[in-house]
C-alpha cells in the first residue's frame, strides 16, 4: 500500500488509541476521583483562595453561563488593550509596532473565541510579549472554557434530575491544570527537540545556498504550537502556520500536531461515555462522527493525490499529486487529511494552502466547518452535536409516536426553540456575511476605503466567491483557517468577522448548556420499549441524516456558486 496513505491511517489510529486512556483520565478528573495529578491540588486551592472562589458550590445553568461569560468579557478587554499597546511593552526584540484598532479588535476576539482567524502575520504583527500573554494565554483559557461548557452538559446528563451543572471555576481551572497544561508540556518538549524554536533572542540570520543573508524570525514558539493544537485553536506563531518549517519541521511533528489537535475532541467523547456511564451512547456518537469524517476525508485525499486535471490537460505528469500550495515534506495525502481534520474540529491550523486545494476538496473543508460537529472543537464539538441530537430526538420521537424524550427528559417547545435558534444562527451569520461582502464587492466596488472592495479578491469568479464564503464559514465555526487569497486585513473583514466570531462562539455554547440545564431540571421518565433508543444505530443514522440534510439545505446555493461551479467548469 501507498506509504503516504499508511501514514494517514497510522496517524488516525494512534489518535484514537491515545484518546482512550486520556478519556478515562478526564472522566476521573471531573468526577473528583483520585488521579496521579492530585499533586496540583494545593495550587488549585491557592488559586481559589486568592480569587475568593468557593469551588464546591454547585451552579445552575444560568449561574454557570454568567460566570463563563463574565470572565470571557474580561479577557477580551485585557487582550484588546495589550495588543493596542504592544510596542511599548517588554519582550519585543524585533521592534514590532502596535496593532491597529480594527485588527486588535479582530485578533482579540478571534483568540478569545478559540477561532484564531489571523489577519496578521506573527513575525511582524506581534511581539513575544503579546504572543505569550495574549495569544498563548487565550489559547489555554478558550480551550478550557470549551471543556468546561461540555462538562456542564455531562453533568446535566449524568443525574436523573438536577439543577447543578457543576462549578464553572472548578471545572475551568482543572481543565487547565490537569489536562491542557501537562499534555502541552509533553508536546512542546517533543516539538522543541525536533526543531521548533524556543528562544527569546529575536531574529537570527542565515546565509542561503545562493549566498544571500536572510533574517529568520524565531521566538518561544514550541509551547504555543503545542497548545495551539491541543486546544484546537490553530493560530500560528508564524504567518505560514504549520506549513512553516520551524512551526512544523518534519513529517513526524506533522503527525504529532495532527494527533494533538484531534485527541481532546475524541477523548471528550469517550469521557462522556465513562462519565455518565453510557458508553454505548458515546461510541454511537463516535461512530457517526467518524463515518462523517471519512465521507469528507476519503474523497479529499483521493482528489489531492490524483492531481489537478487542468494541469493534466496541459500534458504535465503529476506523479506526486496536486502539489500546488503543499509542502514537499508532507505530500498530498497527509495534507488532504490535515485539511479536513483541521476544518472538522475547528483547529484551523494548516500545513498546506486550502486556497490551492482542488475545488471539491475546498467544498469538503467548508462542509467540515459548516457541520462543525464531526468531533468538533475542544469541548464545543459535543455541544454542537448535542443541538443536532435535540432536533433528531424531536423528529424521531414524533416518528415513533411519543412526545420526544432525551435521556429520560421531555424535549418540549422551549428546548426546540433554543436548538432551532442556534441552527438558524449559523445560516444567518455565514450567508448574511457572505451576502454583505458580495453586495459591497458588486455594488460598491470602488468605495473610498483603505482597501477597495474590488481589490479584496485575488481570484475572480467562483473561486473568489469561495474565498469570501470560506472566510465567514471559518469565522462562524470558530475555525480560523483561511482560504487565503482574500485581502482580509481591512476594516470590513476585521469588523464583520469579529462580530460573527463572537456570536458564532457564545450562542452555540449558551444554547446547548441552557438546554442541558432545562432538561436536567425536568422530571425523569424511565425508559420503556416505546422510547426512542438514543444509543441505537438507527438513531445514529437519523442524526447523521439530520446533520447532512440541514447542512445541505442551508448551504446548497453558495456551495453551488462556489466550489461546485468551479469544479464543473474545469
Amino acid at each position: 500500500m501507498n506509504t503516504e496513505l499508511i501514514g494517514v491511517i497510522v496517524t488516525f489510529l494512534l489518535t484514537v488509541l491515545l484518546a482512550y486512556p486520556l478519556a478515562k483520565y478526564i472522566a476521573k478528573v471531573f468526577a473528583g476521583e483520585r488521579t496521579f495529578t492530585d499533586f496540583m491540588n494545593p495550587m488549585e486551592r491557592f488559586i481559589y483562595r486568592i480569587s475568593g472562589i468557593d469551588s464546591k458550590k454547585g451552579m445552575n445553568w444560568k449561574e454557570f453561563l454568567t460566570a463563563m461569560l463574565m470572565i470571557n468579557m474580561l479577557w477580551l478587554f485585557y487582550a484588546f488593550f495589550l495588543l493596542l499597546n504592544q510596542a511599548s511593552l517588554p519582550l519585543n526584540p524585533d521592534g514590532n509596532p502596535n496593532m491597529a484598532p480594527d485588527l486588535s479588535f479582530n485578533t482579540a476576539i478571534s483568540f478569545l473565541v478559540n477561532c484564531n482567524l489571523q489577519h496578521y502575520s506573527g513575525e511582524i504583527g506581534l511581539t513575544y510579549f503579546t504572543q505569550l500573554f495574549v495569544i498563548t494565554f487565550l489559547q489555554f483559557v478558550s480551550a478550557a472554557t470549551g471543556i468546561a461548557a461540555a462538562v456542564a452538559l455531562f453533568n446535566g446528563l449524568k443525574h436523573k434530575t438536577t439543577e447543578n451543572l457543576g462549578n464553572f471555576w472548578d471545572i475551568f481551572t482543572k481543565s487547565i491544570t490537569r489536562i491542557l497544561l501537562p499534555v502541552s508540556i509533553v508536546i512542546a518538549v517533543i516539538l522543541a527537540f525536533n526543531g521548533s524554536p524556543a528562544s527569546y533572542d529575536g531574529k537570527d540570520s542565515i546565509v542561503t545556498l545562493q549566498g544571500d543573508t536572510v533574517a529568520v524570525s524565531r521566538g518561544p514558539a514550541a509551547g504555543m504550537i503545542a497548545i495551539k493544537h491541543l486546544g484546537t485553536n490553530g493560530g500560528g506563531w508564524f504567518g505560514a502556520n504549520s506549513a512553516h518549517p520551524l512551526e512544523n519541521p518534519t513529517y513526524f511533528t506533522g503527525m504529532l500536531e495532527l494527533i494533538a489537535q484531534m485527541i481532546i475532541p475524541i477523548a471528550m467523547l469517550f469521557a462522556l461515555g465513562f462519565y455518565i456511564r453510557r458508553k454505548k451512547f458515546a461510541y454511537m456518537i463516535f461512530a457517526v462522527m467518524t463515518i462523517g469524517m471519512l465521507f469528507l476525508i476519503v474523497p479529499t485525499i483521493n482528489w489531492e493525490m490524483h492531481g489537478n486535471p487542468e494541469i493534466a490537460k496541459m500534458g504535465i505528469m503529476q506523479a506526486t499529486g496536486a502539489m500546488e500550495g503543499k509542502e514537499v515534506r508532507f505530500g498530498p495525502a497527509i495534507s488532504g487529511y490535515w485539511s479536513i481534520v483541521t476544518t472538522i474540529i475547528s483547529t484551523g491550523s494548516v500545513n498546506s494552502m486550502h486556497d490551492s486545494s482542488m475545488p471539491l476538496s475546498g467544498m469538503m473543508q467548508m462542509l467540515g466547518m459548516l457541520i462543525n460537529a464531526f468531533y468538533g472543537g475542544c469541548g464545543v464539538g459535543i455541544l454542537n452535536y448535542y443541538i443536532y441530537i435535540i432536533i433528531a430526538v424531536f423528529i424521531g420521537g414524533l416518528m415513533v409516536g411519543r412526545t420526544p424524550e432525551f435521556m429520560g427528559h421531555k424535549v418540549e417547545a422551549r428546548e426546540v426553540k433554543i436548538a432551532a435558534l442556534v441552527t438558524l444562527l449559523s445560516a444567518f451569520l455565514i450567508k448574511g456575511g457572505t451576502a454583505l461582502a458580495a453586495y459591497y464587492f458588486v455594488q460598491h466596488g470602488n468605495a473610498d476605503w483603505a482597501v477597495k472592495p474590488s481589490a479584496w479578491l485575488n481570484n475572480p469568479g467562483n473561486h473568489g466567491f469561495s474565498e469570501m464564503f470560506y472566510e465567514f464559514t471559518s469565522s462562524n465555526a470558530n475555525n480560523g483557517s483561511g482560504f487565503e487569497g482574500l485581502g482580509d486585513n481591512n476594516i470590513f473583514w476585521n469588523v464583520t468577522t469579529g462580530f460573527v466570531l463572537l456570536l458564532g462562539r457564545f450562542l452555540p455554547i449558551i444554547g446547548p448548556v441552557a438546554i442541558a440545564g432545562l432538561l436536567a431540571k425536568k422530571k425523569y421518565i424511565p425508559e420503556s420499549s416505546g422510547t426512542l433508543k438514543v444509543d441505537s444505530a438507527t438513531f445514529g443514522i437519523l442524526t447523521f441524516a439530520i446533520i447532512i440534510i440541514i447542512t445541505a439545505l442551508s448551504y446548497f446555493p453558495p456551495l453551488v456558486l462556489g466550489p461546485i461551479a468551479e469544479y464543473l467548469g474545469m
Partner: protein
Amino acid sequence: MSQHKRNTKLFEGSLVKGALKQSFIKLKPGVMLKNPVMFTVYIGTLIMLGVCIWIAAGQTSQGSLAYNLTIFSVLFITVLFGNFAEAIAEARGKAQADSLRKTREDTPAKKIFLIGDNFVNEMKIVPSSQLAKGDIFLCEAGDTIPMDGEIISGIATIDESAITGESAPVIREAGGDKSSVTGGTKVLSDKIQVRVTTGPGESFLDKMIALVEGASRQKTPNEIALTILLASFTIIFLIVVVTLKPFADYANTPITIAAFVSLYVCLIPTTIGGLLSAIGIAGMDRALRANVITKSGKAVETAGDLDTLLLDKTGTITIGNRKATNFYPANGITAATFTEACALSSIADQTPEGKSIIELAKLDVSKLNTNGATFVEFTAETRSSGINLTNGTKIRKGAFDSIRNMVTKAGNSFPNETAEQVKVISSNGGTPLVVSENNKVLGVIELQDIIKPGIQERFERLRKMGVKTVMVTGDNPLTARFIADKAGVDDFIAEAKPEDKMNYIKQEQQGGKLVAMMGDGTNDAPALAQADVGVAMNSGTAAAKEAGNMVDLDNDPTKLIEIVEIGKQLLMTRGTLTTFSIANDVAKYFAIVPALFITSIPALQALNIMNLHSPESAILSAVIFNAIIIPMLIPLALKGVAYKPIGASALLRRNLLIYGLGGVIVPFIGIKLIDLFVALFI
C-alpha cells in the same frame, strides 16, 4: 369490545363542498396568521399578484405575464389546499359530532315542577331545548331521554344503540355507579326521574364540536414545539432566498422575482405546514369514531405517551362472571352421582355461577325429579345453598369452611383428598364450591374466571408499545396473581379499594410515568382526575364524567388500548409528514438551483439531473409538485400513519425508510413527470 365504526367516506360530497367554501373564508389574514408557514406562502402569493400587475403595467424584466400569472395561480392554489385540508378535517369531525347530537335535538320532555320541597306530579311537556341544568324530568317506557342527566329515582332498561351502536339494552338506576343517562337514548321499560346535569350547549359533545371547529381549539404542546421547528426552517430558507440576490449579482445572473418566490415556497415545509392542524383535528375525530369524546386535543396527544394503564379485572380482562370448569368427586363417589348432585343443588340458583354449573353438568334438567322439593336460598349466615328433596335428601353447596363446619358438626369427617383439591383450586386462582349430601362430602366444583379471548395478545401488543398494564381487582392476592399471570398483565392491585387506585397512580406519576385509568363511580372521580388520561364511562356518574378528560360512549373498558394507539398515530403522523416535507427539498433544489444559474454558468447543466425541459418549466414543475402534494397527503393526514407495535427502533427505521428516503425519491419522479407535461405548453 364493539367494533362498529361510523364509516363516512374520506371525501363525502357534501363535506367537500362545505370545505371548499371554508378554504376561501379562511383566507382572512387573521386566520392565516395562526399558521406561520402558510402565512408566508400567502405573502408570497400577494407579491406575485403585485408582480403580475407590474408586468401588465409594462415591466419587461420579469418574464412573460402568462408565466407569472401561472406561478401566482399555483401559489394561490397552494394556500387554498392548505386551508382545504384543515376545513375538510373540521367538517368531518363536525359531521361526526353532529350525527351524535342530532339524536337529541328537540325531543319532548316531561318536566316535573317543584313545589315547595316536594316533587308533585305536576308535569308539563316542554321541548328539550327549554330544559336547564338542575331541572327534573320523567321518562317512561317508550320515551326518548331528552337531555343528559342523572337518575334520581327509579330503575329502567335503556336502549343506548343510538350512541353506542350496541343493541342490547342496559340497566340504569338511581344511586350507584350506573346512574347516568344520555340524551337521545330510549327508555324501554319502567320509569325514572332524571335531573339534568348539563345546560343546553354545555354537553361534552358540544364542547368537542367547539374544539373541532377551532373556536376553542388550542395548540397542543407538541404542536407548538413542532410549529417552532417549522418556523425556524422557514426562516433558514428565507435567509437562503434573500442572500441569493447578492450571490446572483456577484455571479452576474439576473433572477426574476417569480423565481425567488418559487424557490422560497418550494423550500419551506409547506406540506406539513398545510396539514398540521388537519392532523390534530383528525386525531380528535378518530377518537370520536371510536366513540370516545375528548375534552381537549391535548388528552389525545397525552394518550400516545401513556406508560401505565389501570384496568379493572371484571369486564376488561375477564368475562363478567366466574364459570364452573371442573367437577372433582370425592373418593368413592362416581362422577355421574356427583354431577347429578351438583345439578340438583343449582337448579334453583339463578346466579351466573349456578347457571354455569348446570351448563357444565350437561344434564337434561327436566328429567331430574324435583317434585315437591324445597329450595334453600343462599344466606350470608349459612354461606351455602341447595335443595331438600321429597325423599329427605339434603344437598348443599357452599364455601369450603361452611360445608366443613356443617359436616363435622354432624359427626362426619371431611375427606382429605377433597381438602387437598380445594387447596389446589384456590392456588390456581379458582374458587372451590364443596357439595354435600346429607352432611357427607360428595366432592368439589371448581369455578374459574374466564379470561377474555384475545386479551393476552392485546397486552402483548401494549407491552411492545412500552405500556405497562395493571389489573385492579377485589380478589385476594393469590387469585389476583394467578389471573394476572394468565392474562399477561404486568402488575395487579389485589383487594383494591378506591384509594388504592389513587395511590398507585400517584406512585407511578412520581416515577415520571403517565397513567391512564377508566372508571365510572363517584369514588373513582379523584383517581380519574389524578390520572393523566382519565376515561369515564358514559354510564358512569356525573362526577366521574366531570373528573375525567375523555368519555367513552360504549362503556367499553378495553377502549383504553385503542386510545393509546390513536394518540401514537397522531404524533407519528406529524413526525413522518415533517420528515417527508423536509426530505422533498433535496429534489426541489436540484430542479430550481440549476434553472436559476444555467444561463450564466452553463456548466451547472450537470446538476440538472432530472433533465428538465427548461428553466421555466423546472421552476413551474417544482411549484406545482409542491402544491399538489398537499391534497395528495390529506387522506394520510386524516387517517393517520399506521402504528405498528414493533418496538421504537424498528418503527423509526420503517418510518425513516418510507417517509425519509421516500421523501427524497418521490419528488424527483413527481417533478420529472410534471415537467414532461408542462413542457408541452412552454
